[in-house]
């Protein structure tokens, strides 16, 4: 909402300054979004004197003027004005100045081959008047002031103040509403505006009817006819008023309706009465009806939109936009002026369906004062008569509903209970009355009648806000918080989230945060068997689905970073993936990707590609750090199709295989090919936080009794030959199953295929530590254990010990 202090003063008597105004506005909830200073640039315009005039060599109508701009500075300016002559004192605009009328910035420019340094201005170019014939002629008395700024401070127009009006305050979409709020808060006095009603004996002869039907969006339609008008350009005061808030003057009739709308937030519509076929019918539209609106677009209507029509058809959409067919023009003679009440819901629905946004719609959907119908007609009709002449008819009001003022019973104690500070009952009444409420004492309560322009006031709490807002939020006293905690800040799963986040980061991964949505073509690579979740109204086709996996985004961004010239990258994200479109259909995942090489260009270490055992280590170590026992982990090779089928695995926290804790592996090479990602190697992992069992134990409980054995331990190595498809894990399990108390530190220290080993077989060498907690084992004991190990491995895996 754009206002000026000058316009406010039409409604407000105040001695305060603009600076105070800005502060006041913000303090009462009418936030000042920006102040457009009209003066900054204006100082560039200088009083100057033409000291020589020559004819332009290449253009008959142009002149080349030498202009004295003060300080002994003379500029050459090309000028087309007839009255440009030697000795004339006028106004000079230098390069870089912005011409107020056209809002164009001047530059040093060649005009028909002659360079012009600036411009000499007409009154119209400076928005001083409509005089565009010739440049400004100043009195010769100003000779002494050559070089000074033309605009003295007092001549400067009031600044344009842009307010951000919250949607609950339609009343402040009119200057008067703002003035009322200001006066209630002590910024001046609201000027009484009892408009004299015009008296007319002429009947309003155009019949108006509001049909009574379901969903009728119009409840009141007021109108009057003004006949024999002469539509002209608006007078200067009216034009200036509109220009001052950034509106473009069009014609007197349109300007007047706009003025009334801006002044008291009462939208009006003027029809060319001669173009209306017989009568006005306010009704619901029929499906498929069409009309051309004032924006020159043709709209096809759905059933049930509120239209103003005549016998021929639709004239306009009530409260949204008028139609071309009945629009006023400069030759319009007779006007029908409309002032109506439209239901906000109906307005919103229609505008949304037609994707239409107009000033009137913006106001009606927030709620127009239903009691301003007559006031608006009265104010506008009088202005039209004043400016365009003509005869005004009686006001005709058709309605299908009567508006009733609402009442609230307000308990004054509630104010302090909510706001934490006190104001007297007297103050309350004063504030409310200034805002337009009627107050009556009713036992302990205040009986309040809500002003018709405040559709936002519905209950007691709204009154508390009014009182707090106008008294000033600075009166709220700070009550320092108490440092007491009754519940732990984070629950177990939140703690796990934070732990995993930092644990993964500590392994060299940079944390990324990417959108929860992604490009479906990327998502398809990683969605596996999950359902695609489309966004109905995506912001772009590249962000059209919720992500089924974090990989789709990470892969995309890895690729971008590779393009930036990085070769070795590790990034991760912790966040949601989605499995359905209902609340709760999501899982929290830590997802990491690592690309390129380890030890690239190292003088000390041999470089190698990142590989599956790097990510396997990162995952396992992270899980161990989070408190899970790696002895219990179970790993197999069943992974989703976006992993390399032979170089990927999944991890369960225990052999019971209840829920998948993580996947890790190389990303499927086909995907890299399809998305054109070029790197030495790309490996990744996903840890499913929601699948990790939360420990009920405290750290204290997690520490078991400390025990160890001091008896001699011996290390034994075994080499087995086994079929290639047997997993190393099976051998380890077979060994450890022999005697978990005696055997520890079971390690694979060599895997070999090739010479001396039959085809389809491999050799696996295992080292085992054997130690008893009861005695030193002798050779016989050890031999027995050795044999059991060999037997167990051979039986369970089909392996053969290498002799």
């Amino acid at each position, binding site marked *: 909402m754009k206002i000026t202090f000058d316009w406010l003063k039409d409604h407000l008597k105040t001695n305060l300054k603009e600076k105070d105004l800005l502060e006041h506005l913000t303090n009462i909830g009418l936030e000042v979004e920006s102040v457009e200073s009209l003066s900054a640039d204006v100082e560039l315009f200088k009083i100057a004197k033409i000291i020589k005039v020559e004819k332009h060599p290449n253009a008959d109508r142009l002149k080349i003027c030498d202009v004295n701009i003060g300080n002994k500075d003379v500029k050459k300016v090309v000028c087309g004005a007839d009255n440009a002559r030697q000795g004339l004192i006028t106004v000079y605009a230098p390069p870089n100045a912005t011409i107020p009328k056209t809002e164009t910035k001047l530059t040093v420019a060649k005009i028909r081959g002659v360079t012009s340094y600036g411009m000499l201005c007409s009154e119209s170019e400076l928005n001083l008047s409509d005089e565009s014939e010739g440049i400004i002629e100043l009195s010769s008395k100003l000779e002494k002031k050559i070089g000074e700024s033309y605009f003295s401070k007092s001549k400067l127009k009031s600044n344009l103040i842009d307010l951000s009006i919250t949607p609950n305050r339609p009343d402040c979409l009119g200057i008067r509403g703002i003035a009322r709020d200001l006066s209630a808060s002590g910024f001046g006095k609201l000027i009484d505006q009892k408009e004299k009603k015009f008296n007319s004996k002429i009947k309003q002869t155009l019949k108006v009817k509001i049909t009574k039907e379901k969903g009728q969006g119009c409840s009141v339609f007021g109108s009057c006819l003004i006949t024999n008008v002469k539509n002209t350009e608006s007078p200067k005061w009216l034009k200036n008023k509109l220009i001052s808030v950034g509106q473009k003057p069009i014609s007197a009739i349109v300007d007047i309706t706009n003025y009334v709308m801006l002044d008291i937030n009462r939208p009006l519509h003027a029809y060319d009465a001669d173009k209306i076929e017989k009568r006005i019918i306010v009704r619901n539209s029929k499906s498929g009806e069409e009309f051309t609106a004032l924006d020159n677009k043709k709209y096809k209507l759905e059933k049930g939109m509120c239209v103003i029509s005549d016998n021929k058809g639709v004239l306009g959409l009530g409260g949204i936009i008028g139609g071309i067919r009945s629009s006023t023009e400069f030759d319009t003679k007779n006007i029908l002026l409309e002032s109506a009440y439209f239901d906000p819901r109906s307005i919103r629905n229609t505008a949304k369906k037609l994707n239409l946004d107009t000033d009137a719609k913006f106001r009606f959907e927030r709620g127009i004062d239903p009691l301003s119908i007559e006031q608006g007609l009265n104010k506008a009709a009088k202005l039209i008569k004043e400016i365009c002449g003509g005869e005004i008819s009686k006001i005709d009001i058709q309605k299908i509903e009567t508006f009733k003022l609402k009442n609230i019973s307000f308990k004054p104690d509630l104010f302090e*209970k909510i706001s934490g500070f006190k104001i007297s009952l007297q103050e309350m009444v004063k504030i409310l009355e200034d805002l337009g409420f009627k107050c009556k004492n009713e036992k302990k309560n205040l009986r309040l009648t809500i002003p018709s322009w405040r559709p936002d006031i519905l209950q007691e709490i709204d009154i508390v806000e009014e009182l707090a807002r106008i008294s000033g939020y600075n009166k709220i006293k700070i009550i320092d918080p108490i440092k007491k905690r009754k519940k732990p*800040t984070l629950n177990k799963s939140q703690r796990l989230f934070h732990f995993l986040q930092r644990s993964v980061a500590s392994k060299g991964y940079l944390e990324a945060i990417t959108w929860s949505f992604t490009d479906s073509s990327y998502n398809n690579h990683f969605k596996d068997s999950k359902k695609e979740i489309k*966004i109905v109204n995506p912001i772009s086709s590249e962000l059209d689905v919720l992500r089924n996996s974090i990989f789709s985004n990470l892969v995309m961004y890895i690729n971008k970073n590779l393009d*930036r010239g990085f070769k070795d990258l590790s990034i991760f994200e912790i966040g949601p993936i989605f499995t359905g479109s209902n609340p709760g259909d999501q899982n929290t995942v830590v997802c990491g990707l690592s690309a390129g090489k380890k030890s690239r260009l190292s003088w000390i270490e041999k470089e190698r590609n990142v590989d599956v055992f790097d990510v396997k280590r990162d995952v396992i170590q992270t899980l161990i750090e989070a408190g899970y026992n790696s002895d219990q982990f179970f790993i197999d090779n069943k992974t989703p199709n976006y992993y390399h089928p032979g170089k990927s695995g999944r991890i369960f926290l225990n052999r019971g295989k209840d829920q998948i804790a993580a996947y890790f592996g190389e990303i499927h090479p086909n995907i890299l090919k399809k998305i054109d990602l070029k790197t030495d190697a790309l490996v990744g992992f996903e840890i499913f936080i929601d699948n990790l069992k939360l420990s009920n134990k405290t750290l204290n409980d997690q520490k078991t009794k400390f025990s160890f054995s001091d008896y001699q331990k011996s290390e034994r190595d075994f080499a087995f030959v086994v079929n290639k498809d047997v997993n190393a894990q099976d051998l380890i399990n077979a060994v450890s199953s022999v005697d978990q108390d005696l055997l520890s530190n079971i390690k694979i220290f060599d895997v070999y295929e090739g010479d001396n080993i039959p085809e389809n077989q491999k050799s696996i060498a295992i080292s085992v530590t054997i130690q008893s907690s009861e005695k030193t084992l002798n050779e016989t004991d050890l031999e027995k254990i050795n044999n059991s190990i060999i037997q167990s491995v051979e039986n369970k895996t089909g392996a053969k010990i290498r002799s």
Partner: protein
Amino acid sequence: MSDLKKLKDEFLSKLRGKSNLSEINQIKSELFGKNGLISTQFKKIGTIAESEKKKFASDLNIIKDELQSLINSKINEAENTEINKKLEQERIDITLPERSFVRGKIHPVSQTIDEISSIFSEIGFSVEEGPDVENEYNNFTALNTPENHPARDMHDTFYLDEKKQNLLRTHTSPVQIRTMIKDKPPFKIIAPGRTYRSDSDQTHAPMFHQVEGLHIDKDINMGHLKGCLNYFIKEFFEVDKIKMRFRPSHFPFTEPSAEVDIGYEMKDGKIIVGEGDQWLEILGCGMVHPNVLKNVNVDAAKYQGYAFGIGIDRLAMLKYGINDLRAFFDCDYRWLSHFGFDPLDVPSNYRGLSR
């Protein structure tokens, strides 16, 4: 007797000037080896007359000690020289780079969330969460945002079905609803998380982060709200003096509502939060609307309190001098390395927020 002296003098002169380890060892075995000269003298002791025995043994021991200690010190010296020579040969260029190591970083938004949680933890708030996909009731209706409110426009909300039943939450406020439906008052929670609006330009991203706050108890008024936020802002920006301004605003789910500005000034193109005379809006808040309490079956006559919503990304930008919101989600390796935090920098009450 003189034999011993002779032996001693002979070997002392033999050892003089010797520094080669093997030569010294050679001499050592000549003297102290199994059949060495000194060893042989010791064997003689038994054959010597009783009267001279004591003296002979004593003299022999003295000579033995003297020679032995000389030899030992010679050996030591030689060994040292040899080791030093070896070490000298092993000298390397210690300015060569160390073995490579990598360290990851925590995203500034995550760090900021942890900072916020840590601050509110101190004054008794616990952390709640809610799903990213919400139903329209929790996101709008329950929050007193009637069906014809402009925030419901397609323009602002991402929907997952044509009927507009499921959507991506546009704020963290539905966590208020979930929390109050699930438990009984009093409530004292914060809820950080992802939020979504179909808005995308220089200062808006389609996804951003908010932290919701909710404190409902029997006598919680706007003074408590002001106190809580005043505490938070000072702790978060780690400054003692900061200007804060409450100004009336409007949100459907709070009444009265306020927006909070903090003071700042520009120094060398960087925002300095504190006592400058410019204002910057950082959050919205207010007293929870009775209609909202009614919707979650909390007795508004008995319980009241405040709620607030803070833009986390905005806070992070302010605190850490980040200019571009879009960069948060652009995953540029250089940006992540620059603005990221070491994973060991865990904000906590006892350590404080900063290292």
